[in-house]
């Protein structure tokens, strides 16, 4: 998609650019969070903002997630459009009430009279041995609870468009970015996430999945990092004469069930790839969404390649053993075929 003379950005830079552009045109937008000021965000997504917008609009906070996320809710209800960072999604446990009981529900509780236009950005994902409290995805946890939109870009183009869309949305949006896609060298980085990003501001529709690779034998459905694993697996499968379609969910809430169902209706086979814990989460939801709609389209039982139901281990060999990867996706296909 990217031509050689086009400007490429990392997801981190795409997020920062979208935020800066929006802040220039909308004085209500401001950013709060830990280390998002002079440091520019641990994952680089607010880099350069404090220099342009100053410490009033780019606010470093105390380590008080309940207070500052709750404050974002209050500020949003009062007419501002806060962008808040929860540094690692793993920290949601200290502040989830402010997220799921205030941010997500105050619109409903007020019958729509109060709006809560805010973006909660948070980093997800492992693969670099950061241990069990700093490597989770928790997609299912956030997507399960009503009242918040949830998006998770797999590349910089989508990242910018989603960020702008999230800031303009009058409802709260949880923006889950994967550390391994940020383009921060020190985390390793998936090259496929750094793509051409137009200079001008644009939005991506929240709630629309994308078929990022067309195929006819199997649908591989995933989000974030999993999309890249799926694309790699698709390449391997292609060499074996198997044509895999890859669906990037992009948004988890609203979930674009039509696109998933249409893909599976076409291919007749489904593999879900999810870096979040396997049970009671995203992988189950995708399978259920397809099978409850129409089981007749399926030529074989759907499969999931997901993180097993264990805390994320530190040791590299253990963590890599647990993580989804292209080989496991190919193996899932092989089992599917054999069955």
């Amino acid at each position, binding site marked *: 998609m990217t031509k050689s003379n086009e400007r490429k950005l990392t997801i981190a830079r795409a997020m920062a650019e979208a935020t800066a552009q929006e802040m220039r045109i909308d004085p209500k937008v401001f950013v709060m969070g830990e280390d998002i000021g002079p440091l520019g965000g641990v994952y680089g997504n607010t880099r350069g903002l404090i220099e342009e917008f100053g410490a009033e609009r780019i606010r470093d906070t105390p380590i008080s997630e309940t207070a500052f996320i709750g404050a974002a809710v*209050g500020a949003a209800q009062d007419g501002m459009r806060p962008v808040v960072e929860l540094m690692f999604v793993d920290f949601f446990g200290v502040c989830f009430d402010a997220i799921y009981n205030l941010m997500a529900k105050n619109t409903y509780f*007020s019958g729509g009279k109060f709006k809560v236009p805010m973006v909660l950005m948070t980093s997800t994902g492992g693969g670099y041995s950061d241990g069990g409290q700093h490597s989770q995805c928790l997609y299912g946890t956030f997507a399960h609870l009503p009242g918040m939109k949830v998006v998770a870009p797999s590349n910089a183009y989508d990242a910018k468009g989603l960020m702008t869309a999230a800031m303009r949305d009058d409802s709260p949006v949880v923006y889950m970015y994967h550390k391994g896609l940020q383009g921060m060298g020190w985390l390793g980085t998936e090259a496929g996430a750094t793509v051409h990003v137009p200079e001008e501001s644009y939005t991506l529709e929240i709630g629309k999945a994308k078929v990022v690779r067309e195929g006819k034998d199997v649908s591989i459905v995933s989000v974030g990092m999993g999309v890249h694993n799926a694309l790699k697996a698709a390449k391997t499968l292609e060499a074996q004469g198997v044509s895999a379609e890859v669906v990037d969910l992009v948004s988890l809430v609203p979930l674009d069930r039509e696109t998933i169902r249409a893909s599976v209706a076409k291919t007749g086979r489904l593999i879900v790839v999810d870096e979040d814990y396997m049970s009671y989460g995203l992988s189950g939801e995708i399978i259920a969404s397809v099978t409850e709609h129409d089981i007749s389209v399926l030529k074989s039982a759907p499969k999931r390649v997901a993180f097993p139901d264990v805390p994320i281990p530190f040791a590299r060999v253990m963590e890599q053993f647990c993580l989804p990867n292209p080989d496991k996706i190919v193996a899932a296909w092989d089992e599917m075929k054999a069955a």
Partner: protein
Amino acid sequence: MSPTREDQHWMYCNMVTSRRFEEAIAKIYFEGKSPAFNMANGPIPGEMHLSDGQEPVAVGVCAHLTPEDVVTATHRPHHQAIAKGVDLDKMAAEIFGKATGLSGGRGGHMHIFDADVNFACSGIIAQGMGPAVGAALSRKMQGKSGVAVAFVGEGAVNQGGWHEAMNLAAVWNLPFVCVIEDNAWGISVSKETSSAVANNADRAAAYGIPGKRIEGNDPYAIHEAAGEAIARARAGNGPSLIEVETYRLAGHFMGDAEGYRPEGEKDALFEKDPIPKMRARMIGDGMASEEELDRIEAEAAARVDAAIKFARESDDAAPEDALTRVFAA
């Protein structure tokens, strides 16, 4: 500075309105709930937390607020809502779960939201703190006037969210006031059992801000302390903390057998009922005549009757509307 004659009339009027409102609610609450008491039944289902006895805090504070100021309340919000000027008809209808309610029946008694007067609630202990601090931040950033007040119970002060929000308000020097209604109980657990300090005003030291405790559930003293704190906030001098000794004349929620109260506590509380006390004082101070106060009381009763009538006569929420307003329209 003690409240003006006009303030006192306003305060008395709102205290009485709140009391009449709760008396009406209390009575209706039991409709359909006897012989067997089942919360799910009757025109007002669900939990019901009354604030009888705690009216002085609401009026002493809200006397200094305008509709544009922000208040966040708790699971026990009626007195605060009334003093803040929340639409009484729509609030009653909300409590009845009617289509004409503040949120069309989606919220209910623990989720009283009125955007017109910047009033919001949370049923989760201490979780009104963050939003109030955020509203204060919003005003400061926009250079707009207005202060934010969070009401909490004394039990809420031991919740982590309370501490975080106090620190945030202080470090950002925001126009925010935290008002603690110390009714001595968090459901069945006494303040003594649960709080390491007897006087929560002492906790202001942890944030380098002024802290004051008012004894005796006294609307005059509350009015004065709140006036200072709110003026300070309006002047850009940052947040304050006020703890008020108050009394919960009812149970924690309706149906509470209150077996945990020491013998005689309830009787003693009723003797200290702040409404007759204020009435007597106003007359003693020459601030109002018997007739004036009778008229206020009659008007309050009429207003409450009208609100209850409005609620009763309104249509039920439409069942399928449960699926709407999840996201902003």
